[in-house]
């Protein structure tokens, strides 16, 4: 309410008054030697270091407050002056001040070296990145082997299969992703139909939108959109979950109980992804074609009858299968990358964030690379 609190700082400023008389230097310190006056204390330390003489006596009588910073400054001052061969004595200290000063231990002040960036550093970084990429690849293959071995073990002893975990993950990755994936595919299908109709109209062949949409959505779009959404939605969840379990030593706890984290945690998740992906891809295909069909009808004046007839003529069973074959492979890629990154988390919260980001970025990148490889493969075998 009053607002104007008198500033106590002004009259309690730390001060060091130096007088010299017959070879004796007397430094009278006064005021609050506390953190509050950090810069002033630093200034006193800087100027005080130049004191020379045979004896320096530091008188504490006027001091009104001393905390660890004040004590540190005094100790550094004493250290600096003693180096020049001057003897330093403290006088007028209270018991507490003496105790505090005696507890201050001085370690040599670290000298910071400034790092300069040069060409060699850049080359070194590039080299490290390439080596890291190679290591990632080898890790990925060896992890895939581990997962396959765990799959095999589960297959041989079906009782070991964690049914409850599998269903739980299937719900999280599959069922709960349906709305967002259907919505995205619906919208993208609509946008593509609109663009196609717009271009085809100039040739008077707007009805061909059905051919274009059907092939594009079934072969590429549905599976790519689904894979990217799942990488962002479920891949990140797997990494974060495994990573935080690693941080809290839960994974170590599993191992000590004789349970293989690969079997208990990773196999159900990857399997759930492999089952969920084709279903989601199928739903995405339907939603995409539905969205495109609606736009073709209302925007392009292509009636549903014409659209469906053209669609039937344009797509064959293999068009549908191309998308479906890719789906489980994409799921495996996403699941593997997410699990590897999750198991790579170290103790800190920062590391968890870094690995989750890496998981999503790597998964999306690999999904697109794998899609490209599939495109080349299918073209080569004329499928």
């Amino acid at each position: 309410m009053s607002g104007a609190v008198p500033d106590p700082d002004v009259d309690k400023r730390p001060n060091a008054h130096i007088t010299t008389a017959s070879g004796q230097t007397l430094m009278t310190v006064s005021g609050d030697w506390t953190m509050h006056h950090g810069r002033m204390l630093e200034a006193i330390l800087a100027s005080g270091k130049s004191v020379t003489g045979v004896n320096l006596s530091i008188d504490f009588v006027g001091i009104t407050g001393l905390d660890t910073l004040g004590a540190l400054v005094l100790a550094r001052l004493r250290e600096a002056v003693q180096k020049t061969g001057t003897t330093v004595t403290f006088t007028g200290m209270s018991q507490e001040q003496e105790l505090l000063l005696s507890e201050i231990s001085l370690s040599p002040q670290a000298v910071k070296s400034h790092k300069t960036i040069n060409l060699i550093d850049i080359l070194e970084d590039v080299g490290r990145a390439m080596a890291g990429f190679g290591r990632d690849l080898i890790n990925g293959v060896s992890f895939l082997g581990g997962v396959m071995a765990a799959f095999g073990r589960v297959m041989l002893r079906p009782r070991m299969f964690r049914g409850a975990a599998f269903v739980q993950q299937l719900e999280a990755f599959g069922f709960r992703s349906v709305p967002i994936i259907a919505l995205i595919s619906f919208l993208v299908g609509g946008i593509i139909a609109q663009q196609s109709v717009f271009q085809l109209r100039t040739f008077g062949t707007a009805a061909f939108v059905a051919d274009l949409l059907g092939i594009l959505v079934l072969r590429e779009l549905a599976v790519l959109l689904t894979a990217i959404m799942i990488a962002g939605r479920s891949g990140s969840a797997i990494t974060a979950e495994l990573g935080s379990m690693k941080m809290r030593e839960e994974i170590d706890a599993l191992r000590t109980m004789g349970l293989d984290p690969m079997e208990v945690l990773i196999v159900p998740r990857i399997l759930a992804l492999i089952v969920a992906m084709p279903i989601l891809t199928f739903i995405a295909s339907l939603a995409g074609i539905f969205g495109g069909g609606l736009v073709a009808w209302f925007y392009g004046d292509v009636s549903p009858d014409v659209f469906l007839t053209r669609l039937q003529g344009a797509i064959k069973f293999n068009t549908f299968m191309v998308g479906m074959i890719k789906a489980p492979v994409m799921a495996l890629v996403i699941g593997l990358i997410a699990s590897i990154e999750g198991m790579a988390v170290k103790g800190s919260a920062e590391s968890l964030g870094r690995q989750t980001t890496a998981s999503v970025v790597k998964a999306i990148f690999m999904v697109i690379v794998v899609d490209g490889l599939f495109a080349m493969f299918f073209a080569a075998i004329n499928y």
Partner: protein
Amino acid sequence: MQHPVPKAERETVIEVRDLAVGFGDRLVNDGLSLDVYRGEILGVVGASGTGKSVLMRTIVGLLPKKRGTIHVFGQDMEHLNERERQAIERRWGILFQQGALFSSLTVKQNLQMPMREYLDLSESMLDDLATMKIEMVGLKADAGDKYPSELSGGMIKRAALARALALDPEIVFLDEPTSGLDPIGAGDFDELTATLQKTLGLTVFMVTHDLDSLNTICDRIVALGEGKVLASGDMQAMQNTTHPWLKSYFSGPRAHLAVGKGR
């Protein structure tokens, strides 16, 4: 801390009156009153779930209270504005049970976090001050460049204590400082607490289960139960209480061992 107060006219730094804190319908603290005096080491004990940590967290403002008043340094915590609260928060430091060191920062950066926020110091001075505090709590200077995940349990406690002391607080709250430490490590930590209390003139509010700490370094013990303070006083007074839990806690075989060692 520069003006020691004689025992006779002890200043009350924390005054809790008729405090009630709870979750849902259940009240953990109900009608609790407590004084903490300047310069003492106060040990707070009680069975699990009697609200020791809840009391501590309520005093520092992490939990809302349902009833009662809390005065710290004579100021009612309820009627403070942001700035006044901050000024008080600068004057206490807290050691959390698990340390709560920021895992993405080194020990030294952890210590410098509050310093950068509140102090105006040059970079080299910040380093010097942080290193000094790290050595003050008995760690080697090179521990400053390590990350919390690279430290042992005892080192984490010490580093967390150093962070709690970063701004030279007047009160430190310690939440089970010796839990998870081996007996020798726990003893060392008690000694460190006592030394720092003397050198820095601290008031220590310590929640603990450790009979050794209670016996060797606490000036006064407060026992919580049934939402209230059951008893307060020194070890002797505790052993003479009639409350069944306190009786078994302070007169059990472990207590006799602790008292036998300490005295």
